[in-house]
């Protein structure tokens, strides 16, 4: 078989079980593709030795007829996941050289499922960003380009390395994390599938924390079927994360029938933003028509507090980040600033954090510190948490009225150029998450499915939002949308 790295998880799994190829062959094809793609800056710590060792072990298990669900399938791991003995620095200089003595629950589950780790993937620093331009490793370059242009584009963020690696066929699939849209926005920008499950579905243990009440891990894949396979492997209760749900994980792949007859799909009027490009508007209308043709009932719905989701997010997420990132003090791990004579422990903290954190991270930590400080806690933080209650209630009301899933655009535009937003104020960059952030605040599952190309040949995605814990049903609706949209475009190889 040729071009083994271009396979998806399901195809590769079936080929392995039939004996058409081996995990070592698949892994070598990916390692070769990774080495030839340094221009994308997606893989920042390569682990070929671990990969080949696990691939050999997987081949032995497959031969013995003892293959778990992802046996022998090569994947990339976002740098936010702690991986034992392998650099895990959340794309930050403050964690430079950090080699965890433990493995995150999700990446351990992927090992247990037989998958093969190829290396660690670039991302925005501490997952704070929407363009992968805040990384200490430098920008990730999207494999996609506008027609007739060689301008470098963003793959989105924060899981930009994961999205670029999957789109460029450097791996079969990758892990991502999503706090405000960090799986779904890069998936939409790169023509890949990304699902953020219900809050509590995947354990957060061993994933570097950004905003603990919002963070969730999820898969980034080449198809909805692959997302179902990988989410099942990643999900499940973990006693080490008190917010992880003690619920059985269904066989998501078995739920992909493509039959959505009679399903009620809500179209929220508040997501029709002023100044939304006609292409996004048309894509949304096309997606609505596809679901209708597949037998779904389309209903107009209202989520009245949508407008307040981003401002609430930019109180809650920085507040939690300022608390979580207090642990980077130069004492236990990572960077410590060189001190001058007479410097005490306070100077050590202040210099270490000024040197170790990038600009965006510093800004968010300080905004979080401010909204939590005496005198402002009620006005900002408690008010934002009240608004969050209202945002969640908006969704509860439409689900109570019988809506099964909600269809929205995934992003307000196609991918933009690297550096294009440099001079914009931070709020402009935050607007990238306008359609995705509500889902994190409400703790719901959301998936981005590639649905079309814009006039310049760049991918656009649609988002489906599901009921809590019903990822199986959501994946099935996404599967129906994927089949109807028939998105097959791939970036032309220039790297």
């Amino acid at each position, binding site marked *: 078989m040729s071009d083994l790295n271009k396979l998806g998880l399901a195809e590769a799994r079936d080929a392995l079980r039939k004996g058409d190829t081996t995990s070592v062959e698949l892994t070598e094809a990916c390692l070769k593709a990774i080495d030839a793609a340094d221009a994308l800056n997606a893989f920042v710590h390569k682990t070929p030795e671990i990969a080949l060792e696990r691939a050999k072990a997987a081949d032995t298990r497959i031969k013995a007829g003892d293959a778990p669900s992802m046996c022998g399938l090569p994947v990339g791991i976002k740098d936010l996941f702690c991986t034992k003995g392998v650099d895990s620095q959340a794309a930050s200089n403050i964690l430079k*050289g950090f*080699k965890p*003595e433990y493995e995150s629950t999700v990446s351990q589950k992927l090992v247990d499922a037989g998958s093969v780790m190829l290396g660690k993937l670039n991302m925005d620093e501490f997952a704070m960003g929407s363009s992968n331009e805040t990384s200490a490793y430098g920008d990730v370059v999207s494999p996609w380009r506008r027609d007739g242009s060689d301008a470098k584009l963003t793959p989105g963020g924060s899981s930009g390395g994961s999205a670029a690696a999957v789109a460029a066929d450097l791996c079969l699939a990758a892990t991502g994390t999503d706090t405000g849209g960090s799986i779904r926005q890069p998936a939409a920008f790169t023509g890949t599938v990304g699902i953020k499950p*219900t*809050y*509590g579905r995947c354990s957060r243990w061993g994933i570097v924390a950004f905003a603990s009440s919002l963070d969730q891990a999820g898969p980034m894949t080449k198809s909805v079927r692959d997302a179902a396979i990988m989410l099942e492997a990643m999900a499940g209760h973990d*006693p080490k994360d*008190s*917010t992880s*749900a*003690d619920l059985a994980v269904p066989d998501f792949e078995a739920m992909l029938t493509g039959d959505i007859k009679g399903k009620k799909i809500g179209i929220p009027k508040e997501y029709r933003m002023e100044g939304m490009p006609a292409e996004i508007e048309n894509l949304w209308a096309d997606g609505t028509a596809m679901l209708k043709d597949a037998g779904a009932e389309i209903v107009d719905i209202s989520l009245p*507090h949508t*407008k*307040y989701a*981003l*401002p609430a997010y*930019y*109180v809650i997420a920085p507040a939690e980040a300022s608390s979580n990132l*207090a642990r980077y003090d*130069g*004492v*236990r*791990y*990572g960077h*410590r600033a060189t001190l001058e004579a007479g410097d*005490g*422990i306070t*100077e*050590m903290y*202040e*210099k270490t*954090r*000024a040197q170790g*954190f990038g600009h965006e991270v*510093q*800004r968010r*930590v*300080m*905004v979080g*510190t*401010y909204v939590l*400080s005496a005198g402002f806690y009620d006005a*900002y933080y*408690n*008010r*934002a*948490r*009240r*608004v*969050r*209650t*209202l945002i*969640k209630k908006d969704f509860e009301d439409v689900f109570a009225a019988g809506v099964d899933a909600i269809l929205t655009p995934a992003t307000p535009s196609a991918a933009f150029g690297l550096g294009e937003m440099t001079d914009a*104020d*931070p*709020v402009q960059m*935050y607007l990238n998450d306008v359609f995705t952030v509500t889902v994190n*605040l409400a*703790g719901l599952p959301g998936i981005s499915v590639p649905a079309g190309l814009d006039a310049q040949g760049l991918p656009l995605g649609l988002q489906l939002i599901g009921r*809590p814990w019903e990822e199986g049903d959501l994946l099935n609706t996404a599967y129906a949308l994927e089949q109807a949209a028939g998105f097959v475009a791939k970036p032309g190889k220039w790297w």
Partner: protein
Amino acid sequence: MSIDQSTAAKVAKLARIKVEEDALPALADEFNTILGFIEQLNEVDVEGVEPMTSVTPQRLKRREDVVNDGNQQDKVLSNAPDAREGFFAVPKVVE
């Protein structure tokens, strides 16, 4: 609410991030842009609404109050920038 340079300096101090004097005006400007955006929340009627504490209505699990981990001093210290004689080392704290 407008943030001036002295407030920006105070916030940086609270966050334990060293910000040079000449970077304060730009920092204050950025804070004001972000806080201006956040001000929209004042339009929402939140009277009688409970602040969210948990997005999923689950009771936190309890576990047995027993020792289930430990005896790994070397691992705990393995990533420390400065570890000596089994401890994390820091600059002098008490005069």
